[in-house]
């Protein structure tokens, strides 16, 4: 940043900060470098194991579901909110979708066709959307803090999912779904990863280029200012939580395709993993700033750490500790930057 003041004397002259300066000023670049360094370090130690197609395929596929959750979480956190319910909503959507597919196939959907699969997708997405809408309405209309509302739906959605099938997993996921989207690949890239990549790209475009994205930043940056310029803050918050719920529903369906079963356990910490990914990616927990690209890096840092530590023979128990350090450091960095900026 130069200290020299430039008067905007000629209107045609756009006072844009040079690209390089904008990049180095952004958290996203640094967090991307951290990811790159991690890959490089693990790659240098065990190039044979790390750069194997199957290792990478598996890493990507496992991360795809979390990535979709984290894209929704990015929007929520930019509005300075939080969504603790995503993992439970995922489970609920996954169970209800699997049961719906079974129900329309006479009890077992294993050999069902595309029509049933499409129906299952619809059920998953809609049930995710309903939870998201409920969160959004309680937060924006009833003015209950997001932490409390989504803590409530975190428990309620999990409970509802257990009630649906009496607490057990739901099998009978269509083979065709698993073969195509669960284990299928396209030029070596797992199809489930392609789906996640498309969702992520759409999310990134929505956030950075559209009015919806701009309002998301504005609401998180100064709710009162947004209200005074005539933005419907309540409507926008509802839409953001609706988006997060819908994506959680989609993630539930992706999970069904990948694991061939709707599992009711194992997603209790998805919410925390998604929040960690978003914050690692440079999105401020105080709202107003952040990016989907950063979230992509933030999703892969813990994943790479986990895989890498296992491969180079370090106990995997070190992984959460390593992630914790990076996470706290990231937030500390964000705080320091903000303080320096706001002192002017």
């Amino acid at each position, binding site marked *: *940043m*130069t200290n*020299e*003041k*430039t*008067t*905007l*004397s000629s*209107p*045609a*002259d*756009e*006072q*844009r*900060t040079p690209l390089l300066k*904008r990049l180095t000023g952004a958290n996203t670049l640094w967090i991307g470098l951290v990811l790159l360094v991690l890959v490089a370090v693990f790659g240098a130690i065990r190039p044979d194991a790390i750069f194997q197609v199957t290792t990478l395929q598996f890493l990507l596929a496992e991360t795809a579901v979390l990535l979709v959750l984290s894209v929704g979480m990015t929007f929520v956190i930019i509005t300075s909110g939080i969504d603790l319910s995503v993992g439970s909503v995922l489970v609920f959507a996954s169970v209800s979708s699997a049961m719906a597919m079974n129900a329309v196939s006479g009890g077992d959907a294993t050999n069902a066709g595309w029509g049933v699969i499409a129906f299952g997708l619809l059920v998953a997405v809609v049930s995710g959307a309903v939870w998201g809408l409920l969160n959004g309405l309680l937060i924006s209309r009833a003015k209950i803090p997001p932490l409390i509302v989504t803590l409530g739906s975190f428990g309620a959605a999990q409970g509802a999912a257990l009630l649906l099938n009496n607490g057990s997993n739901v099998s009978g996921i269509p083979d065709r779904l698993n073969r195509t989207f669960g284990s299928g690949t396209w030029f070596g890239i797992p199809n489930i990863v392609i789906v996640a990549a498309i969702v992520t790209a759409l999310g990134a475009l929505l956030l950075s*280029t*559209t*009015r*919806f994205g*701009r309002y998301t*930043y*504005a609401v*998180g*940056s*100064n709710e*009162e*200012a*947004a209200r*005074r*310029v*005539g*933005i419907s803050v309540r409507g926008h918050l509802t839409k953001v939580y609706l988006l997060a719920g819908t994506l959680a529903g989609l993630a539930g369906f992706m999970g069904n395709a990948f694991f061939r079963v709707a599992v009711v356990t194992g997603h209790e910490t998805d919410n925390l993993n998604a929040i960690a990914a978003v914050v690692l990616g440079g999105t401020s927990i105080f*709202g*107003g*700033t952040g990016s989907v690209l950063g979230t992509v890096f933030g999703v892969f840092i813990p994943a790479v750490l986990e895989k890498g530590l296992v491969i180079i023979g370090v106990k995997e128990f070190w992984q959460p500790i390593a992630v914790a350090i990076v996470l706290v450091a990231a937030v500390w960095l964000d705080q320091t930057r*903000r303080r320096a*900026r*706001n002192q*002017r």
Partner: protein
Amino acid sequence: MSEPLLEARDLTKNYGTVEALRGASFTAYPGEVVSLIGDNGAGKSTLVKCLSGVERPTSGTLLFDGEPLTLNSPNDARDRGIETVFQDLAVAPDLDPAANMYLGREILKPGILGFLGVLDKKAMRRKAAEHFTRFGATLQSIDVPIAALSGGQRQSVAVARSVAWASKLVFMDEPTAALGVVQRERVLDVIKRVRDEGIAVVLISHNMPEVLSVSDRVEVLRLGRRVARFKAADTTVEELVGAMTGALSQEDAA
């Protein structure tokens, strides 16, 4: 003198049993700077809220260009070219000046992209830069977050934004409070420029020398009522203070 642009007659506003306005009147003419002064609790803020659509008066009439006017929301006022610079600025600190200026009024790309809600950031930046130049806001760059600007620059962005959209009248609630000497001069300069474009400015301020230096007229509120009207050129700080404290009153003011 020409016809009043905005006229309020006998406004009352009750908050429960508290009477914030007790038959207050107010007049603003096109292309003038009129200051609204009064001691704390005189009803200045309530009056401005009623005139900018934030609050609805309990009784009384508003006339705009001679026509009766009802304001149900700030948007009603905005639609008529009336803007307000709030005391607490109301900008989004994480957005850049151009984004703030166009907040709620974004320019979309033409065609299908615009239909999908895609912003035309380039056009907004260009027009914002033109506008800031016109109103003498000196910014280091047009794409840093507002929070990275100094207090004075933030203030000039807030003022420039309201001025950009006001075609008739701007309310400025203590726009120079908490500003340094140089910044204050700059804001006063902007006020004069806005007036020279034919837009009426209503300035609320506690700083009497400032009021006298920038205003064409001064209206004084006391206890929810207009108690005096002055031409700025013919009055003194002593007279203004006298009117504010009740030592002096004009028969025909209310």
